[in-house]
């Protein structure tokens, strides 16, 4: 269907509104972080300014712990993502290839378990984590983040592995390959796209998560969002410039990542919600 000129102008206006709503808030923060501190609070905002790294220098001097927190975030995110991808590729393979009543029942339970609000499990886990001396460690966050995504990701992996022709496996069996060899040489290379799709969700979640980090870390394992929340609530008033610098450092890498893998994000979202 072709658009007339009026229709086309209407569409462009709608697109502009959508872009302002979604993009402008992010753009403001990122751009403001490169402004000299005096110009950040100017209104109307200055569109032209000579970029500086003053706010970033202030961040390094005043909040050195932010950079430790970024390191913690990197460790926790990597750990949770690897654990999830390995565990759910294995499980997704079995759910794709094996039909049994027991597996179907466990798959259904996985969907039910996905409904439990995260804050609920913190109640019994809090004393247990303390008793195991796991509080304020990377391990506890890795386990929590991974667990809250294994059910969705098993489903995504199953959806992707379902599409790999079973004949390839049968050929490998004739060649004498065992289950593990089939998994390694047939499934993993062909399910790589699914593994990327599945890993994006847990990766984004782990990088941004607040609640579990807030409850289970105190000093050593604090993640970047936690330090950011402390900066927002700093007693001596919010220093917007420093805050923008930290927010930009936390946000920009994951934003670039999401845009780079957007194809997989979309594929995973639809596989994960519509098909199960």
């Amino acid at each position, binding site marked *: *269907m072709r*658009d007339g000129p009026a229709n086309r102008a209407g*569409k462009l206006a709608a*697109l502009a509104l*959508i872009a302002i709503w*979604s*993009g402008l*808030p*992010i753009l403001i*923060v990122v751009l403001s972080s490169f402004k000299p501190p005096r110009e950040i*609070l100017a*209104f109307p*905002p200055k569109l032209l300014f000579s970029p500086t790294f003053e706010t970033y220098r202030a961040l390094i001097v005043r909040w050195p712990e932010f950079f430790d927190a970024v390191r913690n975030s990197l460790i926790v995110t990597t750990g949770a993502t690897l654990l999830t991808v390995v*565990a759910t590729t*294995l499980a997704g393979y*079995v759910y794709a290839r094996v*039909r049994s*009543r027991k597996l179907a029942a*466990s*798959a*259904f*339970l996985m*969907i*039910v*378990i996905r*409904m*439990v*609000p*995260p*804050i*609920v*499990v*913190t*109640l*019994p886990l809090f004393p247990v984590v303390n008793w195991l001396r796991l509080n304020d460690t990377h391990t506890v966050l890795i386990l929590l983040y*991974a*667990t809250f995504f*294994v059910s969705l990701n*098993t489903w995504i992996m199953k959806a992707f592995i379902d599409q790999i022709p079973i004949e390839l496996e049968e050929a490998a069996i004739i060649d004498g390959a065992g*289950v*593990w060899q089939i998994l390694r040489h047939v499934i993993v290379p062909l399910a790589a796209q699914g593994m990327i799709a599945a890993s994006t969700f847990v990766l*984004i979640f782990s990088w*941004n998560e*607040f609640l579990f980090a*807030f*409850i289970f870390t105190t000093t050593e394992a604090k993640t970047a*969002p936690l330090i*950011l*929340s402390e900066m*927002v609530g700093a007693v001596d008033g919010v220093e917007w410039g420093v805050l*923008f610098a930290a*927010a930009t450092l936390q*946000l920009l890498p*994951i934003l670039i990542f*999401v*845009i780079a893998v*957007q194809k997989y994000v*979309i594929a995973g*979202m639809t596989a994960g919600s*519509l098909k199960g």
Partner: protein
Amino acid sequence: MTAMPTRVAHAIMVAPVQILLILVIGLPSLWVLWLSLHTTSFCQAPVFVGLANYATVLADPYFWHALVNTFVVVNVVVYVELIAALAMATLFASGVPFRRTMISIILAPYAVSEVVAVVIWKYMLEPDVGLISGLIALVGLPELAWTTDRWSALTLVSLLSIWLHLPFSFLILYSALLGVPKELYESAAIDGANAWHRFTRITVPILMPAILVALMFRYVFAFRLFAEVWLLTGGGPARQTEVLATYLYRHAFRYQEFGVASAIGWLMVVGTLLIAAVYLREMYKRMLTADA
């Protein structure tokens, strides 16, 4: 590994996922039920109290306050998102310029953490300097007194939540809409159906399954709302803006009332399962009666 029977190998492959789910979510959820029937605090032997914790919660006016706040915010967020997502998906399905770039921009808030979203929106509403507060002043409206007024604060919480989650609702509906055959619309256009008729008679009915799934997921996730409220208002002023999750947090980790907190926790689990009941029944039918 040559001699491992296939069945054993399969069991080993499924084990990590199952163990994580059972140990980290399954057993703790059941344990919360047990805790909710006892009074406990740190280093104290639990004492069985029956439903006393539930009675305490249900008699607490702050609980009802938090429940009303949650109910209002969740419904506003979910339906505003749905309407916006439907409109955007319809617009995009009709063909737009810069499609790929626009989808990247729409997707962008999905990458933003709750904390950074709070930073962004707090700044935009900062009196005298923020873009939104500036616009509000320009139009001559009174400023959004979100630090002192309950409904202003909840409005801000809702806006923030919509902003963060619109990409999800949009993508679900848009990808469902891409599956609709173009011929349907073309023949409807030939029959003289106008845009509104095409939307209500073709788009909405065909999208209904996707709409229901998107709604269910958004209900379930919006119901957990914690960080936005905690970081913006902390539930204040005077506990006016608490939602269920912040109410639970306060009772567990501020007042050390784990029994009471568990009662709320279990109520949240039951509430979520009720929201998801229709979807879960559908899944149950599909998974356990169809192909097994």
